[in-house]
């Protein structure tokens, strides 16, 4: 019997779903073992019956529920509650679902500030009121799923590597649950480290890092942090390289920005990064700002609107 799967996306960008498709041929293998019973991006199951005349939102029962995106409006809350009710195993897919993700950067601002700006840009015609007909009201902030429901499996990443999505799904289908590594990005990084360097100030990523010939292995390149470029690898959960292992940004010779969220649940990437820098004698004021150190994990109340004129 095929395993029933339901998919939903809330405050998401569809990247997590595309990452599922990026399993490539393994997708065809998975599709033979599962049966999608609901999933707006893939199939035409509707919330209120196929003719839209049902009395209440209904999602069919499923063994596995995949939910990407955080919570940002009342409809998200309703859909999430229904998914939780109907799915045995609820997977928070992607960093938006596990930690708020990039959209949680809005948590530094009030809804009023957001709406003011969005409906008054240079090109926007004056409007008397904010659209509300058929548009669900915003929640007070952008939340991770576990702020509202119990989550069974956390699969962070923006997006999660298809290898990991496959491993988790295959594990569930074969009844051999998979543990994702609780190590940091640095633990998977092949760059060479010379230990405590003399970095006193960080420079912005405005020039390429130093390395040898274009095709030279990443292992020959010195750690970006040791080169004085801010890299969030040490405070970020590893695994983004999937079976290829090398962290994906490092592969392109670009520093990590933390898209897998914190290494340990409940920790604060900005706080931990600033601490690590300070204790290594790096001048923190050389950073142009620090809100964006929390750019992937601003849910759970970590980013909040500030009083006028001050950064969160």
């Amino acid at each position, binding site marked *: 019997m095929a395993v029933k799967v339901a998919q939903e996306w809330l405050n998401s960008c569809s990247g997590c779903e595309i990452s599922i498709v990026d399993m490539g041929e393994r997708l065809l293998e998975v599709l033979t073992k599962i*049966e999608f019973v609901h999933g707006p991006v893939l*199939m035409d199951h509707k919330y209120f019956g196929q003719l839209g005349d049902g009395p209440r939102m209904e999602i069919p029962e499923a063994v596995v529920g995949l939910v990407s995106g955080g919570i940002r409006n009342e409809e998200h809350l309703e859909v999430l509650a229904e998914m939780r009710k109907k799915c045995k195993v609820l997977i928070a897919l992607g960093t938006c679902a596990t930690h708020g*993700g990039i959209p949680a950067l809005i948590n530094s601002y009030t809804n009023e500030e957001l709406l003011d700006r969005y409906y008054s840009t240079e090109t926007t015609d004056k409007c008397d009121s904010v659209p509300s007909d058929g548009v669900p009201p915003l929640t007070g902030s952008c939340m991770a799923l576990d702020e509202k429901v119990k989550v069974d499996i956390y699969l962070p990443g923006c997006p999660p590597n298809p290898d990991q999505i496959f491993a988790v799904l295959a594990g569930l289908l074969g009844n051999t649950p998979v543990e994702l590594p609780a190590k940091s990005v640095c633990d998977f990084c092949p760059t060479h480290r010379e230990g405590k360097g003399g970095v006193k100030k960080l420079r912005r990523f405005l020039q390429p890092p130093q390395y040898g010939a274009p095709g030279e292995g990443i292992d020959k390149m010195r750690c970006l942090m040791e080169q004085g470029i801010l890299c969030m690898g040490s405070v970020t959960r590893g695994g983004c390289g999937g079976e290829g292992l090398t962290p994906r940004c490092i592969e392109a010779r*670009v520093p990590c920005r933390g898209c897998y969220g914190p290494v340990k649940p409940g920790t604060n990437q900005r706080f931990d990064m600033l601490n690590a820098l300070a204790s290594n004698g790096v001048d923190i004021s050389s950073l142009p700002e620090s809100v964006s150190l929390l750019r992937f994990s601003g849910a759970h109340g970590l980013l909040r609107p500030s009083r006028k004129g001050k950064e969160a």
Partner: protein
Amino acid sequence: MGQVINIQPITRIEGHASISIQLDDQGNVSDSKVHVMALRGFEKFVEGKPAEELPRIVTRICGICPWQHHLASNKAVDRCFGVTPPPAGRLLRELMQTVAHAEDKVLHFFFLAAPDFVMGPDADYSVRNVMGIVKAAPELAERVVKMRYAAKMVLEKFAGKAIHPIAGVPGGFSKPMTEQERVEILSKMREVLDFALFTMEFAKTQVFPKYLNEVTELGVIKTGFIGTVDEAGAVNFYDGKLRLMKPDGTYTDFDSQDYCDHIAEHVEPYSAGKMPYARAWNEGFSLDMENPKGIYRANTLARINVADKMATPRAQAELEEFREKFGRPAQYTLLHHWARLIEEVYSCEHAIELLENPEITNPDVRAKVEPRAGRGVGCVEAPRGTLIHDYTTDENGLIKSANLIVGTTHNLGPINMSVNQAARMLIKGGKVDESCLNKIEMAVRAYDP
């Protein structure tokens, strides 16, 4: 007042939206609305962030077209900081843009749109999807998955990260391409070109002919169009001038830096998403079915309508055949699919051209960048239409303000009109069934929102 019919959610599209259709006492359509939910506030929360970080933040606007947001953002920051990428940096960006288009069009055609055509618009919802195709046509499905994966892996392997890319950087590209990489990618893209040509033939012989009635009826409206063309007037995805065409086929070309003079955004009370319209036509905004005002479309059909030609031979031959059949500008909404496949052929041919340019392996890929105060508009063609990022920076190179006009949004007005047209045609005397509601959604899916 009569009944309201809700289609919630609209499915097999990339975004979050629903439709409500108002019937009168006779059960005929009196009004319809497409409700767009997404409101995340990127324009607000990028404020104060270092501009050079934006190309790796704004990607999250859309996981289907992150490359286009990434590149438009890079181009905007280049301008703010007054830097021009070296030729190889530019070539690599354009290559990524072109391969991303190639991948996206396969994804949309086969995964999102084809179920309506291969399984049929009246097929049961449980099989009218890509899983249904996998069962009904396994060899085709396998080939689709392989080819799309091949294109996607070009992006992933070479540029590190395919979804939410990081390899474009202000001043150019993060890493050069080696000769070995060039040769491998070239051979991959030749395979994808073969597949694109196969898909074009497949669609022209086995898909479109069966649905000519739908094509000439469903969601049909008359609008203007927008798209990017190069110096010679050919479609270009990465750079060029913007061309805004009126419904009668006359057009104006302009520099994307001046977009504010030509485009404005209207707000309707039923849609969180704003609706861009042609400010330059000086007629205001109206979705009136008889007499729309300021309404133009973006996306595949728009691009091939505004362009004089395609820059590559096979795509040009396809365009000629298309124009012979449907004229210029072609207005039938479902022709977006046909236009998409012509662009698919172009993407593959153009990627090959770029890879055959010896300059592409030049190791000088990034110019030195200094933060400064400035303003820059970055514009590229996303699969779903013209994409505009407009940033202003302060003296430290932090974002002071940002304005974004995203590809799909150009079509929000037209989508509303197409839905209205389809609903009026299909719903009479209060009779509604699944097939008719799905056909109304097909009018939306053509735009691939």
